[in-house]
């Protein structure tokens, strides 16, 4: 390798890193701008309600389905592992803790990303390429107030509630399999659970779902807001929004989990 090739290689790395930094800074300024408008009237209350319906109410069915089956499969798998040690009594705490601390927040965030996040990116992206956002700007209206802030607030409200629905239905899914199908006693399932689950665990799950709400609404709005032009651009933005939010959710989950343990 000649010296020139090496400098080109090093330069490439530097260029990548700088553009990554630029993108991150751009994203962060976008978030700060959106958070700033949360506390500044006029508040777009109707938009907020509409976004809560979009993210929350319409996600209930999918959350119920994923929640119940997650609880059921957890109970099934954990039961057969615990049986080897003769400690089936721990089924309740194992199901409840893994759902409340990890799976509830993460899976409901992933489901909402797939269901609502992608649609959000596409919606904002199409507004961008049909120049509706530019129209708002030229009328001296802040587009962030109309398009981004309601989504972030709606996500902050909807995510924890969806997570608690997921937790509850997951625990009862586990109850159904553990008690009705596998023959554990109902008292054991719930009393052990009550002993081992504390308010601290529930709080950790809520913190996680709040932070996932910010991540999902932020990334999805950002990707749609700064989409490249053309139908292809919106498609790309949607894909990248879903992939980025899902990866960020899983990474952030690990770090938050290790800090809040």
């Amino acid at each position: 390798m000649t010296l020139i090739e090496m400098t080109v290689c090093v330069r490439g790395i530097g260029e990548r890193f700088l553009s990554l930094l630029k993108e991150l800074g751009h994203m962060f300024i976008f978030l700060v701008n959106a958070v700033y408008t949360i506390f500044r009237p006029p508040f777009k209350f109707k938009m907020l309600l509409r976004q809560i319906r979009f993210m929350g109410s319409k996600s209930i069915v999918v959350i119920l389905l994923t929640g119940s089956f997650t609880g059921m499969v957890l109970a099934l798998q954990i039961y057969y592992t615990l049986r080897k040690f003769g400690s089936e009594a721990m089924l309740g705490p194992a199901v409840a803790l893994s759902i409340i601390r990890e799976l509830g927040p993460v899976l409901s965030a992933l489901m909402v990303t797939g269901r609502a996040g992608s649609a959000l990116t596409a919606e904002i992206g199409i507004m961008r390429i049909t120049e509706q956002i530019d129209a708002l700007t030229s009328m001296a209206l802040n587009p962030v107030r109309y398009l981004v802030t309601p989504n972030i607030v709606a996500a902050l409200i909807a995510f924890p509630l969806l997570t608690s629905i997921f937790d509850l239905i997951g625990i009862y899914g586990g109850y159904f399999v553990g008690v009705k199908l596998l023959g554990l006693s109902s008292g054991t399932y719930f009393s052990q659970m009550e002993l081992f689950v504390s308010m601290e665990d529930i709080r950790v799950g809520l913190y996680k779902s709040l932070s996932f709400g910010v991540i999902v609404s932020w990334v999805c709005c950002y990707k749609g807001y700064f989409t490249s032009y053309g139908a292809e651009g919106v498609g790309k933005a949607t894909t990248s929004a879903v992939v980025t939010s899902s990866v960020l959710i899983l990474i952030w989950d690990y770090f938050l989990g290790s800090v809040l343990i």
Partner: protein
Amino acid sequence: MKKIDLETAVGFFLLIGIFSLAYISVKLGRLEVLGNKGYEVYAEFEQVGGIKPGASVEIAGIAIGRVTGMRLNDYQALLSLEIDKGIKLQEDSIASVRTKGLIGEKYILITPGGSEKIIADGGKIRETESAIDTESLMSKYIFGKI
């Protein structure tokens, strides 16, 4: 079918969500919304290895309260126990740290006494029995000191 309007859909979602959150917090998290507090008594132990705040306090296998706090006082473990209102503890009751099953969780067992005097709110259980350390028991057995 009539289309559900915006406010109904949001209200429905909020109600279900808040209900789930409240149910989990109250049932599993033992969050006390109503001020249904019992009274507090203290007990000093030499050794409470394994007891955590929230551990149950039982008489004859029935839960009558829980451990609310624990701290070190003069090199002894001082536990505060919250006892349900209707339960009266005699002054010579014995509090002991016990284990459920062989490797189960630790709890406080109270053996009622025969005294006429009742421990008041903020009183102290004087007779206590520390946790049985299975490891030292085993080593005693192995090295033949029993």
